[in-house]
Every structure is written in structure tokens, then in C-alpha cells.
């Protein structure tokens, strides 16, 4: 089952069964818990809410990046405020973010030393009971007991799989163990008691880095993080083993052997009246990076499609085939303020690796790219190869990668183009 991630935004009412232990934990920790609000300066009303928790005596509060993303992208339009358990409100400053792990640090003014959450120094064990804290849907601070179920399988950027209800507004709230030490941060839900947490060590790293040297410019910090992450992802993809796999026993396509890329297959072999037999293999990275509510990056999608005409003239087959490739689009969302329009180029390409062999393929190859406006050096790329050398058969090879450097995009494209062929 393909997990469907939604950032915690949807109402999901539940009765909380708080054990005595949970009550005790809640009572002790509540002074260090905050609701984090993003206030639209022009209207004076809140535009998004989340939770946060204090992690130092001098007023550093940890929350999710996606809670304060609007401020990070447009600091002139918003301000960030906290609301504590006594109903006090005040403005806070954004001091550091980790956009890849969806974390942010904000700082409040403190006059006296304050109690704060201690970060755990070891990972929980599978089955351990944990308590998620937060303010779902602006209903007030609650505590949700749940179970630690290890790290999410096949993830590129680690997430803890937490069995317990995490709801909209709890984003950025802490998850503590019985010793009241933070082991994770609420970040996402997949519905029905499946929640995801950012492991606490990501927060430890962010906090230590901040203590060593506070970033001067949040956008530059994000840019550097995105660049480093795509480097890590792309080198993992490019340097891994690419297995050659058969598609409908007619074509060969590369299967990138890394755990975080997952593949699915489909065909229309059961449809008797279809004019074209189609078999599809598609692979994708199951996670992406949230930059703002209309701008995601970090996605990877790869698709191979084999088609065979059934009682069709060559012309009609190619006519219908053209429709299949006419509407490729980006794998991520982005708007006018975030990205440029796509620039495209096409040509007829015969990969050298199989030229003059029985596997030889001749493609119409299309390459498109668009640039990020706020993060120079990052691009979304799209490639589409459509075979044009067989009268009744077609092979489409396609990928899109979001938020990648030119160098990595080109290296991946080169390897990809050479790896697709007829059988």
C-alpha cells in the first residue's frame, strides 16, 4: 500500500484516553508547551497554528518548519507568536530551520530561568510507550499515548513510525518517553493511528549547530540544506546498482536498487477491447520536502511504459501513442513566485550503449527544466523518451526529479538514457 502523507491539517476528533501516567506527565510539562501561531500582519488574524516546546532555559522553542513556513518564505507578511498555558502571548523570532527534517527553532524573550524539555540521549525501543503532546485544532493542549514502532521502512530521511493519533495543530509538539525526555517531534499522519515523528537526534543536531553558530540568513540556510540533501539523494541514486529488468519481455529498463525508491506495476491485459496493450512500471520516492503550502520539492518519479498495437495501422498506433506522451508534467507543485516556466528541448537520440545491436533503440527524447527563484542552483527536471523505431511497439521512458543541481540532473539523465533499450 502506498502510504499517503498529509501534513497534519485535517480534523479528526477523538476521545483521549489519558492514563494516570499521562496526566502526571502533562501536568509537569505543560509550562514548557506552547501553541505557535502565525499572524498575518495585514489582517491581524492567525493564518496557521501548530505546537512547540521549549528546549532551553533561555527561551529556544522547537517546532515544525511547516508551521512557520509562510514566515520563512515571506517574513514581511507575517509575525510568529506563542501562546503559553496561562494564555500569555508574545512575539518570537525565527532563529534556525532544518527544512529537510521539517524542524524550526524560534526564540522567546525570557526574564527568569524557565523549565524546559530535556532531549533524550538514546533511541526508544520498539514497543515502548510514548506520549505525544500538542494542541490539535486549537482545542487546547492534550496528551496522546502511543507506541514507538521503529523507523519508517524505506525512508530516505528518517521518520519514526508512531502508533497513535496525531492531528492537525499538534505539528511541532514533542513526543516524550516515560522519563519525560523528548524522543521525537510530531510531524505527519497517515490516518488511522499511523503517525510520523521526526527523530529527536535531528533536533539535537539542529540545536547544537545553532549554539555553535546561529545562521545569519534563513533562506541561505534552507538553500544550503536543500543543496546538500539533493547531493546525498542523487549520489545514492546514481552510484547504486541499476538492475536491468524486463518489461513485458520486450523491453529493458533500469531498476534502481535503493530501498527508498519503491516500484509498482500495472497493465491493461484484462481489457479485451483496448486498442493498445500497455504495461507500466513506475517507481518513486515516497517522500518530498515541504517548502510552502504550494511548493514542494525533493520528489523523484520514474516511469516506463511498454505499448503494443492490437489490429491497428502504424499511423493510428503512433497517433494514439503521441497522445500518451503529450502531457507529461512535473512531479512537484510550485507557483509563479517559486519557479520559472519550463524550458524544453527535443531531439532524436540513439543511445551508444546498445547502438548496432539487436537491443538498439531510437528515441524521441525530450528534456525540460525550470529554475528555483529563491534557491539558485536548484532545478526541477523532466525527461521523456519515446521510441520511434518499431511500427507496432513503443517504449516510453520518463522521469521527473524536483530540486536537483544541474550537474546531478545531467549525470542521472546520461545514465538513465543509456540504460533503456529493447530486449
Amino acid at each position, binding site marked *: 500500500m502506498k502510504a499517503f502523507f498529509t501534513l497534519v491539517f485535517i480534523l479528526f476528533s477523538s476521545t483521549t484516553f489519558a492514563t494516570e501516567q499521562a496526566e502526571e506527565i502533562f501536568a509537569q510539562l505543560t509550562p514548557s508547551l506552547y501553541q505557535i501561531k502565525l499572524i498575518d500582519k495585514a489582517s491581524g488574524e492567525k493564518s496557521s497554528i501548530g505546537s512547540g516546546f521549549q528546549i532551553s532555559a533561555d527561551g529556544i522553542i522547537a517546532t515544525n518548519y511547516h508551521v512557520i513556513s509562510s514566515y520563512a518564505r515571506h517574513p514581511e507578511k507575517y509575525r510568529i507568536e506563542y501562546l503559553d498555558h496561562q494564555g500569555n502571548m508574545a512575539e518570537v523570532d525565527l532563529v534556525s530551520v532544518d527544512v529537510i527534517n521539517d524542524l524550526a527553532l524560534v526564540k522567546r524573550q525570557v526574564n527568569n530561568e524557565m523549565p524546559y524539555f530535556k532531549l533524550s540521549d538514546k533511541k526508544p525501543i520498539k514497543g515502548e510507550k510514548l506520549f505525544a503532546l500538542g494542541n490539535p485544532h486549537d482545542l487546547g493542549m492534550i496528551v496522546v499515548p502511543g507506541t514507538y514502532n521503529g523507523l519508517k521502512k524505506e525512508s530516505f530521511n528518517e521518520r519514526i513510525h508512531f502508533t497513535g493519533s496525531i492531528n492537525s495543530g499538534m505539528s511541532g509538539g514533542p513526543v516524550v518517553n516515560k522519563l519525560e525526555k523528548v524522543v521525537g517531534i510530531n510531524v505527519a499522519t497517515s490516518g488511522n493511528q499511523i503517525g510520523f515523528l521526526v527523530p529527536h537526534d535531528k533536533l539535537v543536531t539542529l540545536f547544537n549547530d545553532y549554539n555553535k553558530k546561529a545562521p545569519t540568513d534563513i533562506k541561505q540556510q534552507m538553500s544550503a540544506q536543500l543543496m546538500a540533501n539533493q547531493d546525498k539523494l542523487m549520489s545514492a541514486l546514481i552510484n547504486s546498482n541499476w538492475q536491468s529488468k524486463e518489461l513485458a519481455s520486450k523491453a529493458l529498463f533500469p531498476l534502481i536498487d535503493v530501498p527508498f525508491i519503491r516500484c509498482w506495476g500495472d497493465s491493461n491485459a484484462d481489457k479485451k*477491447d483496448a*486498442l493498445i496493450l500497455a504495461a507500466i512500471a513506475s517507481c518513486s520516492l515516497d517522500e518530498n520536502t515541504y517548502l510552502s503550502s504550494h511548493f514542494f520539492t525533493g520528489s523523484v518519479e520514474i516511469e516506463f511504459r511498454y505499448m503494443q498495437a492490437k489490429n491497428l495501422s*502504424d*499511423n*493510428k*498506433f*503512433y*497517433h494514439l*501513442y*503521441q497522445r500518451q*506522451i*503529450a*502531457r*507529461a*508534467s*512535473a512531479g512537484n*507543485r*510550485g*507557483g*509563479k513566485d517559486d*519557479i*520559472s*516556466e*519550463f*524550458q*524544453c*528541448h*527535443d*531531439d*532524436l*537520440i*540513439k*543511445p*551508444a550503449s546498445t*547502438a548496432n545491436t539487436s537491443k538498439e533503440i*531510437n528515441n*524521441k*527524447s*525530450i*528534456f*525540460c*527544466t*525550470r*529554475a*528555483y527563484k529563491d534557491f*539558485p542552483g536548484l*532545478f526541477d527536471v*523532466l525527461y*521523456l523518451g*519515446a521510441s*520511434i*523505431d*518499431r*511500427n507496432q511497439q513503443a517504449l516510453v521512458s520518463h522521469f521527473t526529479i524536483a530540486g536537483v543541481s*544541474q550537474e546531478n540532473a*545531467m549525470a542521472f*539523465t*546520461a545514465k538513465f*538514457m*543509456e540504460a533503456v533499450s529493447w530486449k
Partner: protein
Amino acid sequence: MEVINKIPNIHTEAGIVGPSTDNELPEQQGEIIIEEITRNHKLLHRHRLNQAEVSIGRDYHNDIILSDPHICPQHLSLSFSNGQWQLNDKNSVNGTRLEKNNAVSQDANQQAINDGDVILIGKSQLRVIFKTHLVEDTIAFSPFESLIDFIRHPVAVFISIALFMLIAGNISYLNQPTELNLSQLLVSAFSMSLLFSLWPAGVALVSHLTKHDPRILAQLGISFTFFILLWLSDFLEEIISFNFASNSILTVTVSLLPIGLAFSLFWLNSYIGFHVSAKRRMIVAICITTLLFGGSYLNQYSKRPDFNPHPQYNSTIMAPSYLIAPSNNVDEFLKQSNALFEQANNAAKQD
């Protein structure tokens, strides 16, 4: 000195050659041609009169009888004396006006008339022409004439429509994603050709309404021939965009072909349907072409979103038998793709 003394009473305006009195008619007998014309100066009737006095009016005593109710029974007369025609209004109710060489018309009585003058009486117009009036040069048959003669032949018209239907049927066959039977194809081809025959029929109707010969067969033949040519140019464009990379100069050239064809079609439509000057025909053809292509461009332009998140690329592919260009290798493709990053960066900086 000689010249001045010779026939001082004869009008010698440009385009009019004064008759030499020696071998002409006797002084008191003029020869005049009077044309009844429409307001658009289209000829209705032509009268050639060989007498010194010409009466014009509604009753049956007149030399020229006009049925216009705004004209008096005895409206005016033209008389010839001293080698000159004179207009005499017979106290008509609505008067007589004279339009001289496209100048502003003026009330006329006892006025001299020159060649080419137009007499306005009631709601009718009469043009006076002397026999010495110069006619325009003979227009030689253009090479199109033989082409049009060939195309307007019923067999040729039939063949071009049949060919058109064949192409229309083939296109709807190619576009249908499901199985299609023959009668469906026939119906779509037939309705397509009916739709397209509206254009030549419309042109023929307009030329009929403007008192020209409709020449419907010629219009049909020429229009369908050009519709077929336009489709062929589409096909050519497809082959080129399939074979050559998007930035090829050939793509641009071939995309101008339909504009040229459409212009030729409109020019020929007007050539067949209307007798107008070459300059006017050119202007009309250019205007319709501009309207058609400019309009469709404007339409596309207005629908274009401010920001398009989807890539716009050339996805034309055709069966291998249309493949004529050699293929490049991956390195060459990457080199050209590399240039796109710079373009994307520039696009990002622009807005």
C-alpha cells in the same frame, strides 16, 4: 501661335481629346453616351444618342425614360451647341445636381457638361460619356485563368471534394481512440466537407449579391483544392517537427506555409468572384489572412495563463516510415540540454 488660334471653344481636359471639326458631325448634332448607373457606379443601362437635344424624364416623350418617382415627367434636357453639351433643368421639383470628376456635387442648371460627369436626378444617377472617352487597356488573361478553367470542371470539383472527404475521414479515424465503423467515418467526413463548403458558397453568394457572376463551381473547386493543400502543409509540418529538433529553422519556415496558402486562396476567391483592381484584391486578401491568423493568435494569446506550471514541448511522433533525419547520441543531447539550465535561470530572474 498656331495652337492658340485653333478651335478655342473645344474642351481639352486630360483624357478628352477635342474633336477636330473638319471631319466630324455638323455643328448642331452631338453624339453622346448616357449611362444609367447605381450609386456604387455599377452600370445598369447604356444609351447611345446621336442628336443635338436629349430630354430626360419620367414620361414617355423623353429620349431617356426613367421610372424613379422622384424624377419629374419632364426633368431636364441636354443640348449641344457650339461643340459643347449644356444641361438645362426644366424647373424640376427635386432639382438636378452635377458631380464633376468626383468633386462635390452642386446644383446644376445651364451648366456645361464634360466627359465623365455624373448627373444626379431624383435617386438616380446618369453618367455622361463622350465617344472620345478613353477606355482602359485590355486585360490579358492571367495564367490563373487556365488553372481556374481546369479546376472548375465538374469532374475536377468532384475529385477535389472526394479527396477532401477521404482526408477528413482519415483524420477522424486516426483521432478516435476506440474502434470505429465505416458509416461513422463517412458521416463525419460528409459533415466536415459540408462545413467547409460554406466558405466558397458564401463567397459565391456575396459575388452574386454584388451583381457579379457567382461562379460557384470555380469557387468550390479552388477552395477545396486549397483545403487539401492546407492539410498537406499540416502534414509536412508534422513530418518536420517529428524529424528535426525544436529550434530548427525548417520548423519556422514550414509554419509560414499555411499563411501563404490561405492568402493565395483568398486572392483566388476574390479573383474569381469580383472584378476589382489588382491592388484592391491584394488588400482584401491580406486583410482576411491577417484577420484569420491574427485572430487565432490573439485568441491563443489571451487564453495563455500568466504562469504555466506544465512543460510545453514538441511531442510529435510518427510511424518509423516517416523518419528521415539521423539520430544524435546521448552526449550531444546532454550538451544541448545543458544550455536549458542557463535559459531557466534567466527566466527565473526575469519575473
